[in-house]
């Protein structure tokens, strides 16, 4: 069974007085442990598709299934619970909480889930070591470099062992060397934690890391080749 299935998704936005179509008839299946890349120019709709996959946006038409169950986009509570327990996010500009230390940022999803203090401490220490920023655990995000912040963001996304990791331009704010290290890390840990990965990027360097690449062009999904 696929983790998520999208069927005939349509999405459009109102820009001024005009309705602008962003996604047209999207069909997509993502399986457990699979890593797919969505590429395309700015405005092609890859972030919108990513947001729908991450359940933070909703389609105008079409269906989405999560582990075989239809997703009810009208129930904000159910969407929140799915994100809380099963989906991790990595953002282009890291989006760490500035008043929390690196360790607290990583601990946040576990706090939300209500894990015990001991469990949180152990899990946070482990994942920070895996992303190689354990020595910066007590630092605030402002004191970290871009690469370190993105590693903390990846740790935050993975610490709850999500079934789906959604990454929107995760390497866009990083230099070439760091970008490759971060991409490698995401793939390695994604495999280790057994989660599926959807990455929206226009960074060609990430192609080799993906099991499957989809091209979005004028709202239409093309490709699917490795």
């Amino acid at each position: 069974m696929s983790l998520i299935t999208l069927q005939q998704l349509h999405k459009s936005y109102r820009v001024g007085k005009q309705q602008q179509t962003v996604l047209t008839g999207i069909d997509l299946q993502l399986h457990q442990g699979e890593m797919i890349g969505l590429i395309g120019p700015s405005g092609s709709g890859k972030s919108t598709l990513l947001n729908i996959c991450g359940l933070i946006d909703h389609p105008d038409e079409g269906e989405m299934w999560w582990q075989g169950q239809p997703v009810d986009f009208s129930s904000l509570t159910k969407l929140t619970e799915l994100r809380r327990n099963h989906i991790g996010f990595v953002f282009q500009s890291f989006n760490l909480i500035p008043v929390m230390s690196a360790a607290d940022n990583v601990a946040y999803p576990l706090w939300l889930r209500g894990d015990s203090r001991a469990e949180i401490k152990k899990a946070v220490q482990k994942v920070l070591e895996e992303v190689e920023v354990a020595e910066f655990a007590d630092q605030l995000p402002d004191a970290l470099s871009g690469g370190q912040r993105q590693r903390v963001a990846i740790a935050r996304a993975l610490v709850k062992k999500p079934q789906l990791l959604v990454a929107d331009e995760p390497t866009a704010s990083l230099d070439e060397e760091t970008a490759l290290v971060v991409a490698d890390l995401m793939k390695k840990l994604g495999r280790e934690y057994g989660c599926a990965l959807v990455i929206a990027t226009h960074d060609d360097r990430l192609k080799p890391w993906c099991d499957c690449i989809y091209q979005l062009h004028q709202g239409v999904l093309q490709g699917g080749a490795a």
Partner: protein
Amino acid sequence: MKWLYLAWKNLGRNRRRTLATLLLTAVAVLGIMALSGFALYTYESLKEASMRKEGQVILSHPEYFQREENAPMELGLDRVQQLQQALQADPGIDTTLAQINFDGLVSNGEKSTIFMGQGVEPESFRRQGPGVDLKQGRWLTPELSPQALPEVLLGQRLAASLKVQPGDGLTLLGTTTDGVLNALDVSVRGIISTGIPELDARLLKVHLQSAQELLATDQVSQLGVYLQHPHQDESYYQKIRDQYPELGVTPWHERATFYQSVRNLYNRIFGVMGVILLVMVGFAIFNTASMSVMERTRELGTLAALGTRRREILGLFVQEALLIGLLGSLLGLLLAGGLSLGLYWVDVQMPPPPGQTEGYPLYIYWSPWMAGITSLAVVLFAVLAAGLATLKGINKPIVEALNHV
């Protein structure tokens, strides 16, 4: 606890703004505490003065306070000594003091003027406290010798009008209970002031027996009951009323019209001012929370994307306001406590109230009850304001919030 911890951390994001809101809250709490403290001090002072003047419970003829007498002592109280003995047998009653209220003419031989007289027991001067001030001479002697000339205390302006000093002689003219004119030669013992010029122009106090001699009666107008514990006034009022159903029994506050008027006036004035201060706190916290929500819109999107429930985000902002409300209240209460203590050390005199000649010291009571109510109101306003300010932010779609610049 984690939310409170996060809320505490968030207060440090914009320290200057947090401090400004905190100080405004503290100043508002100080204002409310100072206003209410002044009002409470005034109420207590007036209450005490009223109780000292006539007692906690006043016994009289049932109609004495209801209508004017057609003849002197028409509505007098009989068998007063028996009544006093019976009442004083109660261990909760400290003493009882009888009083005759009468009027007549006072003459120095050249000039006559009307007076408003009170026949009192000398013990009343010890009870009355600072309500009446002895300006010249001495208080009435505790035990008036039958051979001695009756003594009077005159209001300051009455003494000035008659051009008399302590030791001078006067004649009192009054009507007896039979309607016959009677005269009594008296000696001026002292000159007093109540602080109310109109009253000082008419007031005259004599021993109770002197007033009874002038009016040719053994009755009194009223009998004041002074309790061991003044706060038991309500229970003793009920008890005495049940014990003497044939008499008029009046609680002190029904006779304290000035106290009631001041209380009604102050409650309205200071109540409105208190609400204005609370609304100011509400607006300040609404503004702070609105700014904070606007600045952190992207972060709200991130929190929501990570699976934070809307009520949890709302709760976070509300807890930030709660902390500001609590800390501001605490600071305000401490400042109010400092002000209250400071006024015991530094003598600040208030000008005389309208219609009076004497000022009074400014004190501010620090009431734990008022502190609790004020803090609760401030916290409620803060929470409500923060809740309203945050609602718009948390209802924004997550994608829109994440793309907020």
